[in-house]
């Protein structure tokens, strides 16, 4: 089972460090104010966008998802009839099971007691964040994210983002200088 280093305490600490306080995530604007950093609000009555943002961070394990990307993803996902239920359900289950001691296990771990729908939705959300393209058999395929798709974080520094980045003439003759 995979253990990962995101815990309730860590999320809370960062949230406070960002000065988000109690009004955090009450509207979209705080996303912009804090420079695009998004952290989970761990209260019970989270508005859907904020819950979606928190869930996205919990699923992708990227706690600095770009605010504009979250808003775009949210808009498309909320069009799915079961999305609100799955977002709430997944969020509650993940947050509920996280503790200082216990790190988030794999999304496939039975510990979560995800329903089939929730499991599918978790994979769907993860896939879309990484690919930037939304696939759903009943809906039109569409690109939601380009440079903010998470695959590009994974390859940062080793491969330019197609169309947007270039390596400079001749740089391709040697391996990239990889910054640690």
């Amino acid at each position, binding site marked *: 089972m*995979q253990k*990962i*280093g995101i815990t309730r305490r860590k999320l809370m600490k960062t949230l406070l460090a960002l000065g988000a306080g109690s009004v955090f995530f009450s509207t979209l604007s705080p996303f912009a104010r804090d420079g695009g950093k998004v952290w989970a609000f761990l209260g019970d009555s989270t508005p859907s966008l904020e819950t979606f943002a928190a869930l996205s961070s919990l*699923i*992708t*394990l*990227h706690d600095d998802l770009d605010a504009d990307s979250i808003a775009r993803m949210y808009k498309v996902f909320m069009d799915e009839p079961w999305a609100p239920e799955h977002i709430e359900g997944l969020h509650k289950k993940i947050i509920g099971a996280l503790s200082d001691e216990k790190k988030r296990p*794999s*999304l*496939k771990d039975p510990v979560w007691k995800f329903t089939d729908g929730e499991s599918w939705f978790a*994979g769907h959300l*993860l*896939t879309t964040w*990484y*690919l930037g*393209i*939304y696939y759903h058999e009943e809906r039109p*395929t*569409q*690109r939601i994210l*380009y*440079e903010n798709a*998470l*695959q*590009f*974080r*994974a*390859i940062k520094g*080793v*491969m*330019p983002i*197609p*169309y*947007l*980045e*270039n*390596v*400079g*003439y*001749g*740089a*391709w*003759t*040697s*391996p*990239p200088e990889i910054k640690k």
Partner: protein
Amino acid sequence: MSDTVVEADVIIIGSGVAGAMAAYTLANKGVKVAILEAGPRIDRAAIVKKFTQSHKFDFSSGYPNEDWAPRPDWDPAEKPYFDHIGPAQANVEYLRNVGGTTWHWSGFAIRLHPEDMKIKSTYGVGIDWPFDYAELEPYYSEAEKEMGVSGDDKDPHPPRSKPFPLPPIPRSYSDKIIAPKLEKMGIKFSTPPAARNSRAYDGRSQCMGFGTCSPICPSGAQYAAVVHVNKSEKLGVRVLENTRVDRIITDASGKISEVHAKRPDGTDVTARGRIFLLAANGIESPRLLLMSANETYSKGLANSSGRVGRYFFEHPGLVCRMVMPAPVYPRGPEATMSSDNFRNGDFRRTRAGFTFSIHNFAHHFEATSDLLEKGAEPPSLDSAIRDRVVRMIDMSSHMEQLPSEKNGITLDWTRRDRAGQPVMKHYYSFSDYENAGFEAAKETFRHITKALDAELLSIQGPVTEHHPLGMAMMGKDKKTSVVDPHCRSHDHPNLFIVGTAVFPSCGMSRPTLTIAALAIRTAEEIARQLKKKRINRISTD
């Protein structure tokens, strides 16, 4: 009555590299030229942006696909542009906009080899060109200069009278790792000549290493025919964009008298000239000839041989994807190393030859989706993607195909495309000659994978390379060809055709440099004939 009447010495249909290079050559000789172009003008930055907004992985989705100038779209979800009716499918992509398809080509500017042009005489298969390599050579040099071709003079090449205008693009890091390993197997490599600036040239910058040569070079360091559209306009050539030619009209003598075109607002354009040059690409040119059938020419124009729309061939290839044992960091221009090892030999009597190139691009999207599909998850997902991407290698083979009578297009007048033109039925198949070539290429890729100690992910294909060849073939005999050795229609003395449609064979060389060379040669012939008033004389004969 037509809304607009255009008159010029030469009317060119299509502003791709064939049309633009011919227009430029003619305008330089003082000939009055007008180009009718079906599609709109486009802006590089806007196209780049559109590609970042597209969910498709074709080469075209960033480009216009207008109702008045529709084009193929390589997406099975879309209504197909062609009705594929054969056992194989040629997914030919091309663009319909000012500057044509070189907006999204890969820039490889490869000459034919002398034996490719004499394949029948050399190997007993295929169809010979009506002239030999030596005749085309000076035009190759001219085309290379115009397009700015970089290449290594030390590599083995077909005979050359002039050095490459630009030094070679340096090889990539992955090439440097791969080459020595494969050279031990006896495979030799060279740097593929490319119309890509290895230094600033002709007002365009040096290559910046975006790595998206196809579908678009964001910096413009790679040649695109819009360069010669712009140059032609500066010399006074009139370019009418959004002007789709629907019909070529003949007079009683068999000469072309005018062409009829439509604009998006429904208005008509009539263009009259002394000479007409059809440069609408390897598929739309023969289609327009077939569409222009009339009472006198019931099989279509220029078609007394019955060969318009037939004898289609392509460059079908295979794509081999593998994961190397250690990072090779693929990046840089599309490919900086290729091999001609399997190009020539007596085997070409019975099976197709092939070349192959190693790509400097890792399919990060495919790598990511593959890993996700296999259940990879954060936090190890990021390192898994990175690890896969830095070790990924893609090779593709470029194979020859023999023209086959049954391969080609016919028109279905009962169905219309978005512009109201008849839908094309496209029959495509492979013969034993090509099938044996695929097997040989597969076998080679398997050996290569082993020699590199790599993990073979897939060998996909055959995929065609968007080189629609042969459907208005050149030859001396009017019974077996559509145009003469000067690319002039055997049937209509003032109609010339340029582009891949006229090629009798194409070896394994990508065709665009040859298109440009032929366009220059044809334009020179047209200028000569105009000067001698030979065209007019023919018209009154």
